[in-house]
């Protein structure tokens, strides 16, 4: 669904991290995906170190979906976000299916939320001038903490609405880009 001829816009932002570690993180986002060799090595190292993905093939596939990552001052990747256009079950509309992996040491920080915000902005900025090839972002909440926290039916900032549960039994939440319109069934399917 992304236009491969578009030059990706890479956005780099720095933001102080909260928590015991006061180090700063740098957030890099781009869409369509554009991961240089240095970043790819850092991301692969994170996935491999934490056993996030089982095989090199799986990592190569997922690398092609990277919309952003966060790295510490030593250049180590501590969080990675991926997105892939899908026709979402339930709503039958094209959305970006978004996933995040955060290193254990950073799961109490704001890294996941900050990366999500940056990625949302990047995906929206890509989609809007192109007539919204995807109309929003879909989350499938697999992290156990979401069974106890984040239980508001409507998250406010960023705004994600509960739309039911996935076939795997996880909460599904959707954020629609401002101004995006529903696709007719023929266009969506």
């Amino acid at each position, binding site marked *: 669904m992304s236009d491969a001829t578009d030059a990706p816009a890479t956005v780099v932002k720095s933001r102080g991290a909260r928590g015991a570690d006061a180090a700063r993180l740098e957030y890099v986002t781009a869409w369509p995906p554009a991961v240089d060799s240095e970043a790819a090595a850092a991301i692969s190292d994170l996935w491999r170190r934490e056993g996030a993905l089982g095989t090199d093939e799986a990592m190569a596939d997922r690398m092609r979906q990277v919309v952003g990552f966060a790295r510490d001052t030593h250049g180590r990747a501590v969080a990675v976000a991926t997105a892939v256009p899908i026709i979402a079950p339930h709503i*039958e509309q094209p959305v970006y299916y978004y996933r995040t992996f955060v290193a254990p040491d950073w799961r109490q920080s704001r890294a996941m939320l900050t990366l999500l915000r940056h990625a949302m902005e990047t995906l929206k900025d890509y989609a809007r001038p192109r007539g919204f090839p995807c109309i929003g972002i879909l989350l499938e909440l697999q992290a156990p903490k979401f*069974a106890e926290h984040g*239980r508001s039916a409507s998250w*406010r900032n960023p705004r994600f609405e509960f739309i039911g549960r996935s076939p795997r039994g996880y909460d599904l939440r959707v954020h*629609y880009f401002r101004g995006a319109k*529903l696709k007719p069934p023929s266009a969506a399917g």
Partner: protein
Amino acid sequence: MNGGEPTGGTCASAGGFDYVACWPHAGEGDRAAVQAFWQREAAFDGMPEPAARLDEVLLYARDAGGEIVAVCTAKPVLAPRLGQPMYYWRAFVGAAWRARLLSRSLLRRSCELLEAHARQNDFPCIGVLLELENSQFRDHARRATWRNPPFTYIGQSARGLEVRVYYFRDAMLKAQVNK
């Protein structure tokens, strides 16, 4: 107006209409007035309204002459797919008033009324559910998220109709979806 004097507790005026709130229980006068309106407009294809429908009356709008022009109802349902308790909202607007774009005002006021009641009662329902039967929605109001009130598209119903939800601020998902 037939059937006695309406007794709705809250009455607000805007745009040339009075809005009479009846939630959670419409008085006898309100029920009779709404019933007369539905019969006059053949709201149920000329059949008597389902008995339970009068128990669901949420608010109605009157014109300057005191005639009812639209009625909104709400009933608690366990929303399919969401597995969450929601108010299933419906509105019927009199034939002569359908070009007046009353629907948005009715919906906004209904949400305010239901949200205030739910908040005071620990959210027996966590939001409002719409199933869009009116064909005008297939051509207009196509935004994935409406702005005011902010209803979000969540898919299609078993009847093939568009379904949208609005969650009350601070309402939490009920436990059944966690199990």
